[in-house]
């Protein structure tokens, strides 16, 4: 009911997020190692929006297309491994390398599945950077943005980035005040408590299969 108020913004934010993922099509123009994190986020966001507006198949949420583009283009800018490790929390310690790989793969697939469905919500949205405060030596920063459209409230969309040898990498995203990783932590921990790491992998895999069948049907 009334909690749904926040859900609409979440969906639009999620759409932009997924779009952000698919839009990073110009790695040559954006050598991320040299680019400042706020510039990286701004350029990525703007490309995203341009890409969605130009590509009808993406805008309609063609999952295979979104998935393929994420695989090919987004990996340079997002650290899904770190995102998954933080979301799994202390359970990560007990996981074998194979289990960790499976968790990362299935979590990423879940995010792509659910968010590709939100792309049709994007209309005339534009991204604006909010004030960025960071010290020169920082290796972990938050870049804040605001997404505005002709209708509706501005949507807060923030990113946490870590500086790596390969440049800045996004490892957490905040949509209207809700950090993605934090919002999965309790769910993942409960699942691991109830049925172990394999139980969580199975739950994620089952959900992804279910979504795949749902979209095909």
């Amino acid at each position: 009911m009334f909690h749904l108020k926040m859900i609409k913004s979440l969906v639009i934010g999620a759409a932009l997020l997924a779009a952000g993922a698919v839009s990073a099509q110009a790695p040559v123009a954006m050598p991320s190692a040299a680019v400042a994190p706020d510039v990286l986020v701004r350029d990525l966001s703007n490309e995203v929006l341009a890409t969605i507006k130009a590509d009808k198949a993406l805008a309609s949420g063609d999952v295979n297309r979104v998935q393929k583009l994420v695989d090919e283009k987004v990996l340079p800018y997002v650290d899904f491994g770190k995102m998954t490790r933080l979301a799994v929390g202390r359970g990560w310690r007990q996981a074998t390398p194979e289990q960790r790989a499976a968790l990362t793969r299935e979590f990423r697939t879940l995010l792509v599945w659910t968010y590709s469905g939100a792309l049709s919500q994007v209309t005339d949205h534009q991204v604006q950077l909010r004030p960025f405060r960071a010290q020169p030596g920082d290796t972990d920063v938050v870049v804040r943005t605001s997404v505005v459209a002709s209708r509706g409230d501005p949507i807060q969309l923030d990113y946490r980035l870590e500086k790596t040898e390969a440049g800045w990498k996004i490892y957490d995203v905040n949509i209207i005040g809700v950090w993605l990783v934090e919002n999965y932590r309790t769910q993942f921990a409960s699942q691991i408590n109830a049925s172990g790491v394999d139980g969580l992998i199975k739950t994620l895999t089952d959900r992804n299969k279910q979504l795949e069948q749902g979209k095909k049907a």
Partner: protein
Amino acid sequence: MTGAMSARWPREATSMRWLRRVSGVAALVLLAFLAGCATVPPNAGQDPRDPLESFNRHMFEFNEGLDKVVLKPLAQAYGAVLPVPVQECLSNAFSNMRDPSNALNNLLQGKGGEAASDVCRFAINTTVGLLGCFDVASRMGLEKHREDFGQTLAVWGVGNGPFVVLPLFGPSTIRDTAGLGVESVLDVNFWINNVSVRNTIFAVRTVSFRHELLNADDLISEAALDKYTFIRDGYLQRRRNLVYDGNPPPEKDPYGEEDEPNADEGKGRPGPPAAGSDVNPSSVPKPAQ
């Protein structure tokens, strides 16, 4: 509320009227209850933020059932019957009715500039904007500031208290529930003396609101492994963010890493493996201010 809504519902056949009068509401509530057989996990209530989890999960399922049986179908019909410009006009008008409350809460939080801007918004939209049908003020650059008395209490130093799921209104906390009580006094709609007009506006407002979100809740159902937990954690994060107007101070240990060795990866901190297995380590939002 349901009665007022269905009374306005043109497709409702007259033969249904007796049923509606006698037992319509009761039947719907029963259906909602039947749909609301929650599965409560064995460790429910161990999360320090949510000691009432067992009760909350049942209420959450009840709300989901009520939504499925009553609100969502009404919202779908609303979208099918009303032309889009009418929907937008109503949505703007309902939003306008909240601006007096936004103004007062901004004032109570010491944000005089925002409060003045909200007063102007209400004055402009109610007159030039034809009772709020057009959001002229936003186009003039007067930004909307959503504040409520729960946020005001938080700014005054009142902590969340336990998380609680309210019937119909959904996720809340003890503090925000107290805020909701004050909000109902500030709600322009409740200043209307004519009961049937007031109830009709309340009902249409609720349906209009639900209509705007029709596609959205499917996404949450897909993304969440446990919808209750997903929405609870999201609500608590979202409220904290609102209290700080989008700029909350960073949490000390947002990912609960301090009790995790993670020796093999990332910025592992040395430390003994933590004993016990509490489900929610240290991602508990700090009480406001």
